[in-house]
């Protein structure tokens, strides 16, 4: 794997740090006019999702990480592994519960997800920023309360529980932001 010097740091670059694959989120160039330059970096550990602050002297370098993001279709959960497939090649990848983490609540069979492979094995699953899912469970809707605010919890077909407006019923589809878990809108079918 190539190594990257501080002046090649940019957001999205995948590097090895303390033995773990990491992704650079933010790189700030810091330098007094006549002094030493540094890179202040926010970096995400791709194994545990934790974000760290690191400071490097300019000219230091990090080894690149063999990490690629591949779009895959979610197939099924066998209780131990979540199975994903590359639609073009039918290649299948089992992802353990650690790799899927909290993304499991957004998984719906047949839908596409971004699977991060490290040395050929899944280490993280990222759902699209917005997904459309059906409500499978919620309290009955309150008629005539469409204008008023107020929300109630609703369970979606993937398992996620989100707050939705009171007028929504079981069987209706909603659009949700997976980053915040926030309800965006009703989807007319």
């Amino acid at each position, binding site marked *: 794997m190539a190594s990257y010097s501080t002046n090649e740091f940019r957001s999205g670059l995948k590097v090895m740090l303390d033995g773990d694959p990491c992704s650079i989120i933010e790189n700030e160039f810091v*330098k007094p006019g006549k002094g030493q330059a540094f890179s202040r970096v926010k970096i995400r550990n791709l194994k545990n999702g934790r974000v760290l602050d690191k400071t490097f002297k300019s000219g230091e370098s990090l080894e690149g990480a063999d990490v690629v993001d591949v779009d895959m279709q979610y197939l099924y959960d066998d209780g131990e592994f979540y199975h994903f497939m590359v639609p073009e090649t039918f290649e299948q990848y089992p992802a353990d519960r650690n790799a899927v983490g909290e993304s499991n609540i957004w998984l719906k069979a047949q839908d596409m997800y971004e699977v991060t492979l490290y040395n050929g094995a899944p280490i993280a699953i990222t759902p699209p920023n917005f997904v459309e899912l059906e409500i499978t469970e919620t309290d009955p809707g309150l008629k005539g309360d469409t204008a008023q605010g107020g929300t109630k919890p609703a369970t979606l077909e993937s398992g996620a529980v989100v707050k939705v407006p009171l007028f929504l019923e079981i069987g209706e589809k909603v659009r949700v932001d997976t980053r915040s878990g926030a309800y965006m809108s009703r989807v007319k079918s």
Partner: protein
Amino acid sequence: MPALPVLKQRALVYKKIRAFFDEISTLEVDTPLLGITTNTDVHIQSIAARVCSSTLYLQTSPEFAMKRLLVSGSGSIYQISHAFRDEEKGLLHHPEFSLLEWYSLGFDYQALMSQVEDLISRLFEQELSFHKISYFESFHRYLKLDLQLASQTECQDCVTQHIPGIDSSLLSWDDCLDLLMSQIVSREFKGFTFLYDYPESQASLARIKVGEPHLAERFELFYNDIELANGFSELTDAKQQRLRFLQDNCKRQQAGLQTYPIDEDFLKALEQGLPECAGVALGLDRLIMVMQQVNSIHDVMTLDTF
């Protein structure tokens, strides 16, 4: 492409600068951007250009050229110029940037600070208040670190304590100071602040303070934590200057950086006698950032290349 108000702001700043220096009979000059050699400072990287089959360097500041003019009898001079520094890119850095540099004959750095105040007040069209703190006092006040006594290890410990995720054992005494100043100390500055009397190890082209050999007659002007200007009582001793160039090249070699021929024209001029003077460089893009209240230098560049 910046908004029209930014273009107009820049034009107005340049106009006011010219009016200011015209009134105090300081001559505007325009020195070459391409030179046969360049700055040897280990922390400043030059951009080489291929010109008529030989290598020339885009100047990192007009300092050496302007000092040659001072020796030749120009009197006090100023210049609005582009300068080039490789590998400097960020919210406050751009590899090609604009600066105002000027030299006032018969001034020392204290007198020059007052002149900087006059110019800045003029550019902002209001009475401004300027804070002043010495480099040593600022470390004492904000980090409880006494730089006259602190060892390299103590400075490294201070870095480890204040800066997350760094291997401070890789840092020299000056590296520690640079990092602590830019990341901790200067963040305490509010409004316009002069930082003065730098440690001798950071003298650059400044004169050493008479009677206090651990200090250099150097200052910087900050707005909040943004470095705007750097000034000195200028070093006029050719021998000492040659020694600093040689030391720079030594450090460059150790760091695996390219070394540069020593600027003999500049040294020859110094030998003839640079008149006593103080000089300062003010970053114009950053000044316009402050005026426009934007966070990125890229928002004020005219046709941003990067």
